[in-house]
């Protein structure tokens, strides 16, 4: 019989509801798994066993009393450490926030707590979510459970590794340029970046406010759909959340893709995509065609400019968002200051890591007087061109299928000295953030070294149901999602 930590969230929830197992037993099983494998994987910055057990006992009490509980009651989750949690340190993997214990919860955390979901702790990330491997974490580097010498991807690498290692059945990440989808691909999971505005960003520590979205990691499409349903919806504390009712995304698990129009953008299969990744994704597209989807090629001619535009827009927003870390209201303060300017400059010098400093400087430069038009305004105009590319494609297609990342997981240290090579890792995922559209990554095979390959599905704004429908149909026709990393 499979161990509890190998089960899907849907199976765990069903067992808890049927009283085959208690929420407390499930929580204890995952805490034991964390104890067993955490020293080799290093997914978590903070584990909260006492809080988790107390939450689990409360859920068990509700079930024993016959109270109606939600579809994920008693199921554990791991939270990326850029989501604010009352009473639990929230660091963004940055030394500048060491010791910060938020006085309020992120909206997604409140929603999950109300749904009886058990939080196991806070996962590692690239500092302030800036990176693609967790090597920019100000704490430590997380390892890929499929091969401990490889990165788990990033920035939500801790959240991805936690699920892939069986330390949690579900987790939440955030995605600004691929930070959910690329680690999902590297760790053989389903990861969803929802439409901008679908999920409240309240309590998500801001990186680039016009691009950030919170989303789920899971072993299966069904689990991801359950978690997405639980966290979506408008929020009066996030003025950019969209006032639109939330469907039950599990209703999209029909397995039917007959007549679905799938576009294959040639620009995403160009030079730079590894032959093994290309072959896996094309073969997956063949399976979708076999299931009745109509597949045709499409062109998104401005794709090539997305990376450059993103590396202006995201740092520009970051330089503004990260101005708040000044050593006055929270986090670290320098001990070397002689006046208030000195206090700001030295606190930030000591507290931020190299990648964050680079992005703050890039953003400050791009926004500074005399450069604004040439860089920031230009990038925003290119953003319009990228959006129009998608709008034109979605007149003819219901969704687009591409690789999630150009390669499978790379080695720890392999790209850490080459920032540009690292950034190319996000080349397939950045356009969806720039256009605000939803995108899903799922496993579509393994390379010759046994590392997972990710396939990306992108659809028009608020088409999450279509993505989930297609991904579920593909998943039912294959068995990649049943494999587990051996640790």
């Amino acid at each position, binding site marked *: 019989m499979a161990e509890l930590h190998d089960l899907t969230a849907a199976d765990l929830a069903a067992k808890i509801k049927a009283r085959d197992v208690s929420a407390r037993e499930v929580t204890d099983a995952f805490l034991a798994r964390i104890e067993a494998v955490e020293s080799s994987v290093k997914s978590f910055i903070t584990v909260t066993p006492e809080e988790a057990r107390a939450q689990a006992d409360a859920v068990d009490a509700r079930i024993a009393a016959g109270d109606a509980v939600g579809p994920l009651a008693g199921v554990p989750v791991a939270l990326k450490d850029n989501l604010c949690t009352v009473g639990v340190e929230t660091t963004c993997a940055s030394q500048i926030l060491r010791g910060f214990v938020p006085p*309020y919860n992120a909206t997604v955390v409140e929603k999950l707590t109300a749904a009886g979901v058990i939080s196991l702790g806070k996962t590692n990330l690239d500092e302030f979510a800036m990176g693609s491997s967790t090597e920019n974490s100000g704490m430590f580097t997380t390892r890929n459970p499929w091969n401990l010498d490889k990165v788990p991807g990033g920035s939500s690498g801790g959240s991805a590794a936690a699920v892939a290692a069986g330390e949690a059945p579900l987790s939440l990440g955030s995605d600004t340029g691929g930070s959910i989808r690329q680690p999902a691909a590297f760790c053989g999971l389903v990861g969803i970046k929802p439409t*901008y505005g679908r999920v409240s960003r309240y309590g998500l520590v801001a990186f680039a406010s016009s691009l950030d979205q919170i989303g789920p990691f899971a072993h299966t499409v069904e689990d991801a759909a359950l978690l997405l349903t639980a966290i979506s919806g408008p929020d009066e504390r996030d003025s950019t959340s969209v006032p639109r009712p939330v469907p039950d995304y599990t209703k999209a698990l029909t397995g039917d893709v007959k007549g679905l129009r799938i576009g294959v953008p040639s620009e995403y299969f160009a030079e730079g995509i590894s032959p093994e990744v290309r072959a896996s994704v094309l073969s997956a597209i063949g399976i979708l065609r076999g299931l009745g989807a109509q597949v045709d090629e499409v062109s998104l001619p401005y794709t090539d400019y997305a990376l450059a535009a993103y590396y202006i827009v995201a740092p520009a927003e970051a330089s503004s968002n990260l101005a708040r870390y000044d050593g006055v209201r929270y986090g670290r303060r320098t001990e070397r200051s002689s006046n208030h300017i000195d206090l700001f400059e030295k606190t930030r010098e000591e507290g931020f890591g190299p990648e964050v400093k680079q992005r703050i*400087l890039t953003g*400050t430069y791009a926004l500074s007087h005399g450069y604004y038009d*040439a860089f920031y305004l230009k990038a925003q105009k290119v953003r319009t061109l990228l959006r129009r590319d998608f709008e034109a494609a979605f007149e003819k297609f219901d969704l687009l299928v591409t690789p999630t990342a150009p390669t499978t997981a790379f080695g720890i240290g392999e790209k850490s000295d080459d920032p540009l090579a690292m950034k190319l890792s996000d080349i397939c995922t950045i356009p969806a953030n720039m256009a605000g559209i939803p995108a899903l990554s799922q496993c579509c095979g393994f390379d010759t070294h046994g590392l997972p390959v990710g396939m990306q599905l992108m659809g028009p704004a608020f088409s999450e149901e279509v993505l989930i429908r297609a991904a579920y149909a593909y998943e039912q026709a294959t068995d990649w999602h049943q494999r587990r990393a051996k640790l």
Partner: protein
Amino acid sequence: MSASGQAGCYNEAAVQKSTATLFCRRLSRLMALTPDDVRNVGSLARLALTEDETERLTHQLNDLLDQFARLQELDTDDVPPTSHAVPVAAMLREDIVRPSLPREAVIAMGPQVDEELGGFIVPQVLGE
């Protein structure tokens, strides 16, 4: 503003002059960003940089600027900018007075606070 005139927080004239100079340099491609330019941007961002960092960042920023130059290939004169991808009006909540976080909770995380007065302590700003 300090007595020396050396910036309360922002010296508009100096910033305009230095950034305008930088811009001309980039456009004419006479030279790339220098370590001094990078230190200047660092000071705009209130970020002190060590010598090693300045050298590394000068190199990295110049690499990025080369990438950005590609965007100039595109004619965008008639293209409106996109600041938010999903065009919706900002959602506003009812304008009703409601309790905010208690003051103690807000100052609890400050590195240096005065609990009695309920405030954050910073180095002297006026009349240095």
